[in-house]
């Protein structure tokens, strides 16, 4: 047992860090620093820089562009990327539909779709949730009825993140209503330009437009866009939930945020009249550092267990990554809110070319705080995660 990096691991981290520092456009870095939305072009730009280096889909099988790294190495990669403020690649492509296609898709599908995911030629979005099917996904109602060589799809998807930019959507649809609810679901790839697809952006409480309703009204989808077998879609979705948990804890991103919070707290403390709440804010930051360090090691423990068991761990520890990861992100956003004090109220846009530490940093923290409430809701709410943990504890 040993937590120290090997020389090779240390050198690799250094390599990734140097690469990001040299290659990440400053304007993108600044947006990440202030938690502002990236444009579609920003993400395409960065994905292509990564692709050129060969790192856009490093976790994929080598055959389709992956690097063949160990799980630990992959985790280190993501950790450093996030610490250096690099945007994640578009997960709907690289971490969701991509792995589904290379695992369950046919050769034609692989050749057609995978290369266009790697360089973000296709922008994918996710069509799982529905208005009456959130954490209880299997109660979904969107139907796909076979009609000749097509499926005819009707229904509504919602919370579709970045769907407004999307070229394709991967959907769970009901293909058999006769059977028990999980059993009649299929996994379908739908071209967003198909007639009958309508996207309605939804404004969120932070003022942004990140999520969408997607209405599917008699949309004809060629049967060749069915992934795997009909009525097996639930298995593929479950595979996704268990797959690729590295990074769900967002340890690297939280490290960067805490480092920044410490820096700003020190500066705000210096600027200010004497008494003040800042020592208490520093304590809260220290406590979050402790929890994050623990989470980082918990994450490596899960990875190590998964490596050893040669696949998915069934330890409830994996749910910790979601619960604690999201709670820490939210707590950091609260620290920043409190650190900004009255300035959090103002919604000022940081001026272009500002210094990282200008007081204008405070103008976006309330948006981030409001927006971050989502992280304990999506991806299986934290309540669902606790149910999962308890079930496993009581079964053991």
């Amino acid at each position: 047992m040993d937590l120290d990096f090997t020389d090779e691991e240390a050198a690799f981290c250094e390599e990734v860090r140097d690469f990001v520092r040299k290659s990440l456009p400053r304007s993108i870095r600044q947006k990440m620093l202030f938690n502002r939305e990236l444009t579609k072009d920003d993400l395409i730009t960065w994905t292509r820089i990564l692709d050129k280096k060969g790192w856009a889909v490093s976790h994929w099988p080598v055959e389709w562009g992956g690097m063949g790294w160990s799980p630990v190495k992959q985790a280190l990669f993501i950790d450093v990327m996030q610490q250096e403020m690099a945007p994640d690649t578009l997960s709907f492509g690289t971490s969701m539909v991509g792995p589904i296609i290379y695992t369950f898709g046919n050769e034609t599908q692989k050749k057609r779709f995978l290369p266009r995911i790697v360089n973000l030629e296709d922008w994918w979005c996710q069509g799982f949730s529905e208005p009456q099917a959130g954490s209880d996904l299997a109660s979904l109602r969107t139907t796909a009825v076979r009609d000749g060589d097509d499926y005819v799809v009707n229904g509504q998807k919602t919370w579709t993140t970045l769907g407004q930019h999307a070229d394709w959507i991967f959907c769970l649809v009901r293909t058999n209503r006769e059977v028990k609810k999980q059993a009649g679901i299929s996994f379908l790839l739908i071209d967003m330009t198909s007639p009958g697809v309508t996207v309605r952006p939804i404004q969120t409480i932070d003022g942004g437009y990140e999520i969408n309703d997607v209405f599917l009204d008699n949309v004809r989808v060629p049967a060749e866009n069915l992934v795997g077998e009909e009525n097996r879609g639930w298995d593929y979705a479950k595979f996704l939930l268990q797959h690729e948990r590295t990074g769900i804890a967002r340890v690297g991103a939280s490290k960067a945020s805490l480092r920044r919070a410490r820096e700003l707290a020190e500066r705000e403390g210096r600027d200010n009249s004497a008494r003040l709440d800042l020592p208490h804010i520093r304590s809260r930051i220290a406590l979050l550092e402790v929890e994050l360090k623990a989470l980082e090691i918990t994450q490596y423990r899960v990875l190590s267990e998964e490596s050893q068991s040669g696949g998915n761990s069934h330890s409830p520890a994996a749910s910790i990554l979601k619960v604690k990861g999201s709670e820490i992100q939210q707590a950091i956003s609260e620290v920043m809110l409190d650190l900004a004090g009255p300035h959090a109220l103002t919604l000022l846009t940081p001026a272009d070319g500002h210094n990282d530490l200008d007081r204008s940093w405070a103008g976006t923290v309330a948006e981030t705080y409001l927006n971050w409430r989502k992280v304990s809701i999506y991806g299986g709410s934290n309540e669902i995660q606790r149910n999962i943990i308890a079930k496993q504890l009581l079964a053991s």
Partner: protein
Amino acid sequence: MDLQINEQQRLLKESVQKLAADLYPFEKREAIRLSEAGWSRDYWAQYAELGLAGLTVEEAYGGIGCGPFETMVVMEELGRSLAPEPFVATVLLGGGLIRHAGNEEQKERLLPGLCSGELLLAFAHLEEQARHELHDIATVAAKTADGYRLKGRKTLVLHGSDADVLVVAARLSGDRLDRDGIGLFLVAGDASGVSRQGHRTIDGRPAAEIVFQDVDVPSRDMLDAPGETLAVIERVADETIAALAAEGVGVMDEMLKMTIEHVGLRKQFGTEIASFQAIQHRLADMYIALEQARSMAIYAAGIGRDNDPERRGAGIAAAKVQLCRSLRYVGQQAIQLHGGIGMTMEYKVGHLFQRATAIEALFGGAEHHLQTLAAGGGLFAA
């Protein structure tokens, strides 16, 4: 000790409820929020008709002379209905300063207009470096032949772009952090040298950054509080915090009500989520947080009248601590239990959460006020 609301308070409550039911259905309020001003002069006229614009003003000046418990009753309803009208800026802040520090001539000049709803006031006080320290004022009022010349920059002036008259805090003498040497000045919103940059706060309400570039103010427009200006500012801030506590209670009460309704309708895995015990306990904790804040809102209304600034300050700090902690908990849980829909602007609960977050940040959050208490002699000093 008497904890029942009296007949007058009950009638006042009902009339504000009726007004709010009329003015603030979701779509109607959205239209106002999305309008250029973000609030409505028409609506404000209706407030004035009911006497709300002059709620705390003595009858001699056209008001109805109510006290803090009536303000509490009104603010709770305004909180519940997310009313964006300038009650805080004009009545509590601007009006409060003139009531406490104005001389007879100034009161006669300004208060009737305030009560009739025609005159809008705002308090230009906070500066960027000050965080929540009420005495941290760098704006300078230099003596001139027949008055003063103001120079400085104010931030987060609530309804600052709309105000006809700004009450401006500026330094007559001493250093930025001195507690003495502060003066209050009446400045027309459109006076020469005043430039106002309006913006919205995180809850969609209007506010302004205001620069005073050599603004001349005649002597008669300095409020009369020689040597006591900071004490007046502190009193008005304390009274306003007490009122915000009541507004916050209204906001929370509405969030809890919506959440109870939502979990009773929402199904997951074929069952109403209201039947899940973890959800039920969350509701119980939200309720406890709300009721504890309600108790402190009552406490704040009472102690806000105290003439001993230390005792009053400690009591108000305590109320704001409880308020902020309750707002954060109830707000976060309301969103969490609503799930995705709570995150959108299409549903009132998210707007309530925005307002809850704004109320927290106004006049200092929980940690700021906890410091005051920790350093002092305690709420239960022998």
